[in-house]
């Protein structure tokens, strides 16, 4: 961790980067920290309690500016960064990634391939919570699932925290703000909520890296991260990719195979 601080301070000092995004101690738990000088870099921490997906800030021009900047990345953040590379939202020459691996040594990445090589070793597994809820849902009949989600959705008041927290929801104009036509009504209402979350999942096909940020962000605790999570788990084998490991060319929906399997087309 010390090394991390030193390195951060150093690159800020010698002007390699103009900004380092990382974590600092918060009142309850670590919170994001934006260091513009070596001074603030001393506050940097990086441990297992740091779970905010900082990748969400990287696409915000007003925050990162036009210069080169650095970010301290967790595995989830790394996954997101890879996907953002794929979607041309980040350029390798603008970004320097710092992380501390399990052995406690400081590692740095720049390119997609470097990250990929590192992230590969970490398999994306269901946590206890996910396991518990998903097995419950998977055990339900269709009607029960419908009831389950209706109940959950009835709490959603469309604060769009899920959207803001998601590193991959970087559109300047979200579909709910498109009004010609108004595909999905922005206000909270049963069908509108349903449509919003189905739409989110569809937009995440082949993109979501299951960082769980959306779920953490939801103020009323709807397990929305599991919709995308489940989708991702189901699609991975279908389209032959590794969950949470983005591929450089083409996402699952914008590409296809001659022998894509399906049993429902008559």
């Amino acid at each position, binding site marked *: 961790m010390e090394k991390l601080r030193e390195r951060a301070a150093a690159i800020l000092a010698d002007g390699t980067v103009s900004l380092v995004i990382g974590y600092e101690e918060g009142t309850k738990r670590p919170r994001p920290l934006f260091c513009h000088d070596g001074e603030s870099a001393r506050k940097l921490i990086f441990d297992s309690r740091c779970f905010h997906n900082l990748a969400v800030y990287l696409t915000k021009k007003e925050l990162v500016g036009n210069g080169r900047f650095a970010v301290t990345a967790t595995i989830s953040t790394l996954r997101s960064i890879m996907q953002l590379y794929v979607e041309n939202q980040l350029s390798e020459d603008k970004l320097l990634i710092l992380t501390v691996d399990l052995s406690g040594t400081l590692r740095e990445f720049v390119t997609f391939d470097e990250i990929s090589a590192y992230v590969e070793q970490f398999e994306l597994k269901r946590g206890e919570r996910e396991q518990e809820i998903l097995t419950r*849902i998977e055990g*339900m009949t*269709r*009607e*029960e*699932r*419908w*009831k*389950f*989600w*209706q109940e959950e959705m009835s709490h959603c008041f469309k604060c769009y925290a899920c959207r803001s927290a998601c590193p991959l929801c970087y559109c300047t104009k979200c*579909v709910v703000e498109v009004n010609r036509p*108004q*595909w*999905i*009504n922005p*206000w909270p*209402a*049963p*069908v*509108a909520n*349903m*449509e919003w*979350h*189905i*739409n989110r*999942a*569809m937009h995440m*096909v*082949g993109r979501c890296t299951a960082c769980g940020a959306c779920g953490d962000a939801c103020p009323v605790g709807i397990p929305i991260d599991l*919709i995308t999570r*489940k*989708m991702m788990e*189901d*699609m991975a084998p*279908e*389209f032959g990719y590794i969950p949470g490991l983005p591929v450089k060319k083409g996402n*699952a*929906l*914008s*590409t*296809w*195979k*001659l022998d*894509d*399997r*399906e049993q*429902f*087309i*008559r």
Partner: protein
Amino acid sequence: MSSEEIFEPKIVAFVCNWCTYAGADLTGTSRLKYATNVKIVRFPCTGRIDFLLLLKSFAQGADGIIVSGCHPNDCHYTSGNFHARRRWIAFRSILDMMGVDVRRVQYSWVSAAEGSKWADLVNNTVADIRALGPYTDYQKVADYLEKEVQDGEA
């Protein structure tokens, strides 16, 4: 509706211009008869069909949906239907996860030469949806504000 009178489902068909639309034309020229419940919306290609349209259809009271285009390898645009196929694979699994009744969406490949297949597809789908009954689950929650806006627009 009282139980004894038979239920006439509302079904929208999203079809591509080159295969299924032409196929349905052939059904006509060959004077094959089918149920009036299905109404066709014409698209250049199945690749164009937005999943949101399917959602909106249910919200607007459709009891069933048909999505049909060119057989694999026959796509006028070479690969639109392959893209569509992937989209539907994903969409279907998400709908299922959310508890939406995926049996109400019938996907199919109907070529420009399969006039009779189109007639059968329509009749079978109508029968299936009739068996499933109206999709009140979804319509119940379809929200009133939206309706108002719709009427306002129309």
